[in-house]
């Protein structure tokens, strides 16, 4: 994502030397390239005027929590987009891993348990569960990456297939041990303590208690980890090189196969992390948990400037993208817009964002 201020400074002198037609184009280009942010600003101001609660501390913390919940997934999927690919299986992987995490960390005292004979919940057991779901996510991601890299299949096809397969696995999982498709609920306090329990608590002037959950901290940590991987490691640089020009990377000795597999594996691991957080967050996990999460994550990435043309994108952009998308969703419901209508608006926003993004990369003649 280009810094609009910086590019404006650079073009000040160029602007002076432009003729009328070029100036008109300059302005229309500047407006269109930043249209998303301009609209965003207008939208926020409008919502804040219409509904005073929108910018109240409670609402802001709510947005922050929602952003934190969806960030890890977006961070993972972004790598696939940098490789000019995508990942449609993400949402279902979140569903599967959240159900598994939930089942392994159910309260041991409730009567209807998913697994009847599990050891006491200790720190070690929680850690083991995390490892388990991250591994499951990573394996599905690795399968995606393998088929993409080995058979040169488009990630769209591969991940469409694994999305279906994962959904099948979810349905089978929910039928295990005579569960008969019942939601996984009755999660243990220990699990919730780690994820959704308040990390910081305070009260507003009006006396309403507000708390920031722990998983906000985890999201921040993951942002830093991913920033480091993307910018400071050879794997990150290879990922961008492959996304920018796979042939050049291959000729220079980059292992394109492993880079592709690893990017997808990393994405899968991030879905596992998201699933673990999601389980405690929603506390009653059904078969449709995680449904369409990948769409939100992809949309957030594109809004944040991780382009489908490949080889471009920044972590800061992804964070911004997730924020923008979340703010829009929250604002839509605060404006009292019909839930069905919200889907249509979401779709329109994604369409507009992608069109505006592609516009930047078009070679004009």
């Amino acid at each position, binding site marked *: 994502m280009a810094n609009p201020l910086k590019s404006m400074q650079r073009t000040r002198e160029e602007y002076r030397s432009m003729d009328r037609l070029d100036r008109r184009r300059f302005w229309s280009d500047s407006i269109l390239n930043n249209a998303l942010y301009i609209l965003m600003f207008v939208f926020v101001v409008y919502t804040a005027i219409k509904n005073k609660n929108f910018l109240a501390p409670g609402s802001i913390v709510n947005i922050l929590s929602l952003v934190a919940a969806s960030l890890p997934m977006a961070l993972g999927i972004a790598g696939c987009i940098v490789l000019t690919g995508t990942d449609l299986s993400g949402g279902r992987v979140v569903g599967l891993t959240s159900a598994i995490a939930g089942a392994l960390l159910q309260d041991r005292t409730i009567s209807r348990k998913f697994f009847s004979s599990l050891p006491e919940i200790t720190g070690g057991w929680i850690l083991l569960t995390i490892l388990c779901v991250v591994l499951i996510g990573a394996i599905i991601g690795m399968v995606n990456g393998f088929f993409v890299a080995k058979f040169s299949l488009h990630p769209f096809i591969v991940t469409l297939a694994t999305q279906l397969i994962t959904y099948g696995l979810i349905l089978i999982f929910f039928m295990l041990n005579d569960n008969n498709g019942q939601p996984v609920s009755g999660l243990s306090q220990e699990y919730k303590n780690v994820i959704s329990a308040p990390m910081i608590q305070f009260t507003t002037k009006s006396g309403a208690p507000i708390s920031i959950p722990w998983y906000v901290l985890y999201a921040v940590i993951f942002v830093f980890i991913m920033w480091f991987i993307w910018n400071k490691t*050879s*794997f990150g*640089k290879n990922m961008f090189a492959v996304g920018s020009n796979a042939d*050049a*990377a291959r000729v*220079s*000795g980059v292992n394109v196969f492993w880079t592709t597999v690893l990017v997808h594996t990393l994405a899968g691991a991030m879905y596992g992390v998201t699933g673990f957080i999601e389980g405690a967050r929603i506390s009653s996990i059904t078969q449709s948990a995680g449904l369409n999460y990948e769409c939100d994550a992809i949309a957030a990435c594109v809004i944040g400037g991780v382009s489908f043309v490949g080889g471009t994108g920044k972590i800061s952009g992804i964070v911004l993208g997730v924020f923008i998308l979340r703010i829009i969703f929250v604002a839509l419901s605060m404006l009292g817009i019909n839930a069905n209508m919200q889907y249509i608006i979401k779709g329109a926003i994604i369409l507009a964002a992608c069109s505006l993004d592609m516009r930047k990369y078009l070679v004009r*003649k």
Partner: protein
Amino acid sequence: MEQTVLLQMKDITKNFPGVKALDKVSLEVKAGTVHALMGENGAGKSTLMKCLFGIYNKDSGHIYLEGREINFSSSKEALNNGVAMVHQELNQALKRSVMDNLWLGRYPKTAGFVVNEKKMYHDTVEIFNELGIDVDPHRIMSTMPVSQRQMVEIAKAVSYHSKIIVFDEPTSSLTEEEVEHLFRIINMLRDRGLGIIYISHKMAEIKRISDEITIMRDGQHIATKPAAELEMNDIIRLMVGRELGNQFPEKTNKPGETYLEVKNLSGMYNQLHDVSFTARRGEILGLAGLDGSGRTETLETIFGVATRKTGTILLGGRECKNKNPRQSIKNRFALLTEERRATGIFSILNIRENTVISSLKKHKRFGFVLSSKSMKADTQWSIDAMHTKTPSQETKIRALSGGNQQKVIIGRWLLTDPEVLLLDEPTRGIDVGAKYEIYQLILDLANRGKTVLMVSSEMPELLGVCDRILVMSGGQLAGEVDAKTATQEDIMRLAAKYV
């Protein structure tokens, strides 16, 4: 003093289904020399290089580097062993920075996985200073001109401590000044004892830079001689395999009245600026200039492929808007594009489908059914008129040679009944024999009163075929020369005017 042989390729043979691409070809490159590799398109130069770099597996023969037999399986392995190539079409990650590209695949690392950017920067600057390259290592590749990107590629080859560097058509998009810089670098590398393999079509360049010349033809080694012993005509004779009587057909066209007028043409998204000229009926007007000087853009803007900012186009005094190719075809313009494979042929379609695609309207019956009878008739007319060599109308166009493909496309355009033909590099990638036929076709068109605008990078071709030549430079019209009296030097001087 006897120079040591750095690279020896001995009796290399490579067969493709039905074709003997290389037949016992040998090549010896000595340390501290520039060895030019010459031959027509399809002579086997690039196949030979691909065998060296392990992109193709040779069927038989041996390759020795400093006396040790080698058999690379990939370009990367070749690089690691000191054999590098600077490609004609640069293969780079354009969205990444200069130093990211330079060290791609072997980033200096600390702790095994963290990239040491400081060292990367430092090393890059060191190599650039050594070669006299003035480029910021942090700059993003796509923001730099081709000449600088090429310099990065050379720096990359040097950074691998290469002993052999292959240059494949390195000057095709460089200005004279940039060519001088490139030659300084090549000479410096030669003086360091490297062996340089230099592939180019430009005779003057070859004579200047090379010490030895190897000529190939039809997959065979024809001759290797010191450059000083070969005259340009000898080289051509050896390359073509026969005395070239006349490279160009006799000029018989008689330009008539002024027909096409282009006024103040400027491009919206390209650097084309204020181009005005006229062309007459039956005239062949050449457009010369360096790559990127706006020649192609001029044709594309006239044809409505590129967006016009200002300018008017008059055909016989009547204004033609030409907002898009469809309008232009209606206004009886035709554009033969430069990239035949990308924007000319539909490679998986057959000759007939390729021939009639621009004139489908003529074959419509009852408003929507296409008459196969009339399409067959038109295609046959095109094949006969162009002397296209093809087994049948149903043959896939990709099975034809470049020259015959070009004839199919020219035939396609003639079926739209154009008055103005815009030809962008009509003989690119076509061998010498077929070129003559294309020239003859162009002259025939002019004889029939058509106006022809022809872009070419080969100046002898422009001087031989055209009546007048417009020279472009930096998106502007730098001047005009008479093809009968002008020399290549005149054109080059104008081409550098606004660079």
